[in-house]
């Protein structure tokens, strides 16, 4: 039981210590940060092994029973998110060992990274609305600082834009939490869920609208997406991987899922809202991505498009739709992190992000070239890779629910995705090698290792999707399908 608070305590403690390590050698900071993220990854896998039969663990802080105190909730969905967050974080820190050598103040970088990780773990685990807000702010503020880490003009501009929109989102969320407190007199999610169950009034819809706007801004669904294509490319590559792969999901998609499914309960209007927002994001993100000439910017727009897939799956609401959405969430974290790390590797070696200036890079950078091909094929949904299965599940879900127009659109956008990733491959990695890139070398070993392992994850989850589905995703889907039974489960035990 006492493992659960360690997910917050370890990164926080490490962050506070790392901030003091200004005079220590760089290698010491590397070791401490990598050790911490490795521990967290192992711990999240241990938790997966410990919990059987859709068990829900409730950890009460300071021995105060909810709703008096704050509780942490560990169910299938939280474990899934913990595994995603901490695994990607480990590969990002491993990658940073070499990549961040070009920046100053590495210990502060790791410290901010750990704070962001602590914030995300806190958001994923908490069962209390105000606590959700507080940890959301930790993760967001750390990410604003990390986007601006290079302190170049463009990075600052992107970070400022991100920060303004992020702050507005946080304030909207806080206002909505206040509304719920005024209505129910409680802050605990399960308690609020049990009080408002079955009720319908304008105040609840108002609070839902505020939550949707706030979390939608964090998740960059399309009417709220303006910050993402600037912020994600501007950050250092490991941070781009974290932001696109994990942060928008932990802060946006997970929170929307938790609040809508488990606290308010899904209704027909809500599921249509999610699906419409999803379709707009999916198509809009795809169409914007195909016109980009900057490698990282293209990846950022493609993130918006893929988040659209997840929202459609969630809105669809039946077993296959939810399974597909959660599987796609996991897969997108793996291949988008991989692709951003690839783009970072290309930038590390060549110093450019323009697709037209590259060409034939897989001859001089074989590891980067191969892994990026695997990532591109996965994200476009080519059969043996993991992206295929999750898109297939979403499509099965849509067909079962009878949304044929949406099915066709989903398949078309999948083709569009293939098109722009083929374009990336053709411009950057295949074709003739330009003369000025003849001398460059493959990136250092730690960067290679993290890219290779992520590529193996992409293939592995594609082949072994069935056991994974049973072990990891089915408990999570059960949590969502049970919906507002969440309250009874938590307050009961």
């Amino acid at each position, binding site marked *: 039981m006492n493992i659960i608070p360690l997910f917050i305590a370890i990164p926080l403690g490490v962050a506070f210590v790392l901030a003091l390590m200004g005079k220590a050698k760089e290698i010491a900071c590397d070791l401490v940060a990598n050790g911490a993220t490795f521990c967290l990854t192992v711990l999240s896998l241990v938790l997966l092994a410990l919990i059987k039969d859709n068990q829900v663990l409730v950890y009460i802080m300071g021995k105060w029973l909810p709703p008096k105190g704050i509780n942490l909730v560990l169910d299938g969905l939280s474990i899934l998110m913990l595994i995603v967050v901490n695994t990607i974080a480990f590969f990002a820190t491993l990658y940073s060992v070499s990549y961040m050598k070009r920046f100053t103040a590495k210990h502060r970088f790791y410290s901010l990274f750990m704070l962001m990780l602590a914030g995300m773990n806190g958001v994923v685990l908490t069962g209390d609305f*105000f606590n959700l807000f*507080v940890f959301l*702010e930790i993760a967001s*503020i750390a990410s*604003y*600082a990390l986007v*601006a880490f290079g*302190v*170049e*003009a*463009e990075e*600052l*501009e*992107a*970070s*400022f834009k991100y*920060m*303004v929109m992020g*702050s*507005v989102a946080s*304030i909207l969320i*806080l*206002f909505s939490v*206040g509304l719920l*407190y*005024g209505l129910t007199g409680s*802050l605990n999610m399960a308690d609020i869920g049990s009080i408002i169950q079955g009720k319908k009034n304008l105040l609840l819809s108002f609070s839902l609208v505020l939550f949707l706007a706030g979390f939608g801004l964090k998740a960059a669904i399309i009417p709220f997406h303006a910050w993402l*294509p*600037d912020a994600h490319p*501007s950050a250092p590559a490991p941070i781009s991987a974290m932001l696109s792969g994990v942060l928008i999901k932990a802060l946006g998609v997970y929170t929307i899922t938790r609040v809508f499914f488990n606290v308010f309960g899904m209704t027909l209007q809500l599921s249509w809202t999610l699906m419409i927002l999803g379709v707009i994001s999916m198509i809009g993100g795809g169409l914007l991505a195909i016109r980009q000439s900057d490698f990282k910017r293209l990846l950022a727009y493609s993130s918006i498009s893929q988040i659209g897939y997840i929202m459609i799956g969630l809105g669809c609401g039946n077993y296959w739709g939810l399974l597909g959405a959660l599987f796609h969430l996991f897969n997108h974290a793996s291949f988008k992190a991989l692709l951003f790390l690839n783009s970072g590797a290309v930038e590390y070696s060549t110093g450019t992000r323009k697709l037209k200036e590259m060409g034939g890079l897989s001859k001089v950078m074989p590891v980067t070239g191969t892994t990026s091909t695997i990532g591109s094929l996965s994200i476009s949904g080519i059969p043996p890779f993991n992206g295929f299965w999750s898109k297939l599940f979403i499509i099965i879900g849509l067909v079962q629910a009878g949304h044929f127009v949406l099915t066709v659109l989903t398949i078309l956008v999948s083709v569009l995705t293939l098109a722009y990733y083929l374009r990336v491959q053709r411009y950057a990695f295949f074709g003739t090698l330009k003369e000025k890139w003849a001398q460059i070398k493959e990136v250092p070993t730690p960067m290679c290792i993290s890219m290779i392992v992520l590529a193996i994850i992409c293939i592995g989850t594609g082949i072994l999707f069935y056991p994974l589905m049973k072990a990891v995703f089915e408990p999570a889907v059960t949590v969502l399908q049970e919906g507002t039974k969440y309250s009874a489960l938590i307050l009961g035990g």
Partner: protein
Amino acid sequence: MVFFLSFVIFLIGLYCVITKKNLLKIVMGIVIMEYAVNFFLVLLGYRKAGVAPIVVEGARKANFVDPLPQAMVLTAIVISIATLAFIVAMCIRIYEKYHTFDVTEIRRLKG
């Protein structure tokens, strides 16, 4: 009704963030929104003829106002000053790079 007045302050802040072109004005809009939310939360906890939730010698039980929103507001105030300090640092750095606070001139990124 007084709840709505606090929401009006919130909307003024939102208007400022959306329409103004000066970085510091945008920052001020965010600060105004934070004030409004804090005001709203404390209003939620007020009780008619209530007293501050501090036990003094002699009167152990009294008509206390709700302490929970006050604790929330304390946290929210700290978060707002933290955000403000960071965002001002960012503004100063942007000024150093662009020599202006005008948003319309701070546009090196496309889109």
